[in-house]
């Protein structure tokens, strides 16, 4: 499968601050890719480099083989970016906004697709309303539609669901998943890790301008966080032999680290020998949030 986005050794400073410290990253065509990281990690800066809004100090970025600087016109036709900041032009209506955006991409007769975007994003009833009169969530929908007017093969969404209602999140993700199913490559940044966990199949994590994790979701979850065995015991005493495995103890349940299911047998045997009965048992799967915290915590300092 070919490469949709390629960053090679991209560096960017803002004065003293090294916002990007040499990022190497590839997103393959057709992927649903999450770019995660705490505030200030450099996600937006990286996306701005991709869109040509920011010039990297060194390194290069390509969209489907087109360099975003040397071949900027081709690169921009292939990518649609939803910026993080909520911005709009107060002079125009929703439909005018989309028609202009379409025209900037060289598309004159684009009414059918614009109508479909309005429909799919729940904007049809607001088509002739002035941008100023829309709620924040509605403006965000228009921003998504603006990024999609030229049917870009690569779609980048920078925190599209920050501060928006559940209804928009659902309509938005249903539509984006449909586009992904039709072959569009999707890159998103979000603070809602469960969103990334359900939607994405590959994940990169950025911290202070450095890439600290990059893998398939399944591999990342498997490698970065062991499962946890949750036990309720009678009598309520954890045998000394199992103490080293204790992760936490809450509400009368012991959370033990479970490296692989093979060790479960031995743990149960230890309990039996100590004369402790198992009242309740649960194996907790790691979620993306615990992986995220693990990765961000481990790389500290």
């Amino acid at each position, binding site marked *: 499968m070919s490469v949709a986005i390629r960053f090679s050794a991209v560096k960017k400073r803002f004065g003293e601050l090294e916002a990007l410290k040499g990022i190497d990253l590839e997103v393959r065509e057709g992927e649903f890719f999450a770019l995660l990281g705490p505030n200030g990690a450099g996600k937006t800066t990286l996306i701005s480099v991709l869109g040509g809004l*920011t*010039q990297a100090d060194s390194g290069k970025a390509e969209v489907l083989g087109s360099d975003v600087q040397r071949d900027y016109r081709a690169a921009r036709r292939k990518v649609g970016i939803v910026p993080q900041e909520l*911005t709009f*032009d107060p002079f*125009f209506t929703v439909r005018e906004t989309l028609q202009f955006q379409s025209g900037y991409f060289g598309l004159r007769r684009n009414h059918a697709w614009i109508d479909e975007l309005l429909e799919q994003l729940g904007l049809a009833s607001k088509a002739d309303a002035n941008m100023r009169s829309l709620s924040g969530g509605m403006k965000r929908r228009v921003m998504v539609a603006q990024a999609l007017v030229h049917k870009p093969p690569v779609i980048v969404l920078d925190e599209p669901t920050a501060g928006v209602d559940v209804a928009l999140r659902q309509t938005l993700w249903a539509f984006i998943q449909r586009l992904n199913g039709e072959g569009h490559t999707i890159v998103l940044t979000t603070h809602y890790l469960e969103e990334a966990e359900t939607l994405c199949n590959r994940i990169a994590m950025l911290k202070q301008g450095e890439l600290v994790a990059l893998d398939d979701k399944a591999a990342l979850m498997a490698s970065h966080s062991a499962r946890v065995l949750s036990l309720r015991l009678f009598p309520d005493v954890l045998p000394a032999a199992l103490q080293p495995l204790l992760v936490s103890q809450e509400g009368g349940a012991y959370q033990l680290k479970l490296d692989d299911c093979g060790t479960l047998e031995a743990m149960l045997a230890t309990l039996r020998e100590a004369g402790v009965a198992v009242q309740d048992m649960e194996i907790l799967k790691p979620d993306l949030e615990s992986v995220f915290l693990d990765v961000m915590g481990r790389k500290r300092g």
Partner: protein
Amino acid sequence: MQGFSTLFYKEILRFWKVSFQTVAAPVLTAVLYLLIFSHVLESHVEAYPGVRYTAFLIPGLAMMSMLQNAFANTSSSLIQSKITGNIVYILLPPLSHLEFFLAYVLAAVVRGLVVGSGVLAVTMWLAWPEFKYPLWILAFALLGSSVMAILGLIAGIWAEKFDQLAAFQNFIIVPLTFLSGVFYSIHSLPAFWLGVSHLNPVFYMIDGFRYGFFGASDVSPWLSLAVVSGTVVVLAAFTLQLLRTGYKLKH
């Protein structure tokens, strides 16, 4: 081409939707200037033999209005887009630097021409400004508006706040236009100020423009044409270079 025409149309629509402020207001201002100055000076000043002062004043005021509005259109559009952040929707599409430049400048020229025509349409009933050489009139209207539209683009790119833009306007644009012979023939000036006026490109715009109306001017219209065209070329080259390097528009 489609990208250019869309951006051009958007810029036109932007001022036309608020034409009460962007067209009607400047026309009214120019008419008030004319009424006041002609009332005070009509009987005292004769700029050119056989030309009434009121008639003499009309092309100057029309040109001044065109220049100020061409400047206002590009500069206010850009600074608003920069401050609200919606400039990203212009920077993300595959518009070339030339398309960007031409769309902004030509839309501002259109606003200049609309305002200038408005001023003439209202004031010519007060004193007939002859309209001797319409082609000269048109040429200087287009070139003069272009110069100011490009300066507005430069100011809009450079300024980060509204007060910086206001400073550019108050300390550069207004003095250049007021000290250019809008209200007087520069031949009435002392030698020193006459020399200074000859360094001001706006003087040539107004002098050449006025030649188109009366067939009389302070310097040859060909000289004015050369100076104003040269100014357009130099400013355009400079601005395209700014756009190419992404000065202040890209981090």
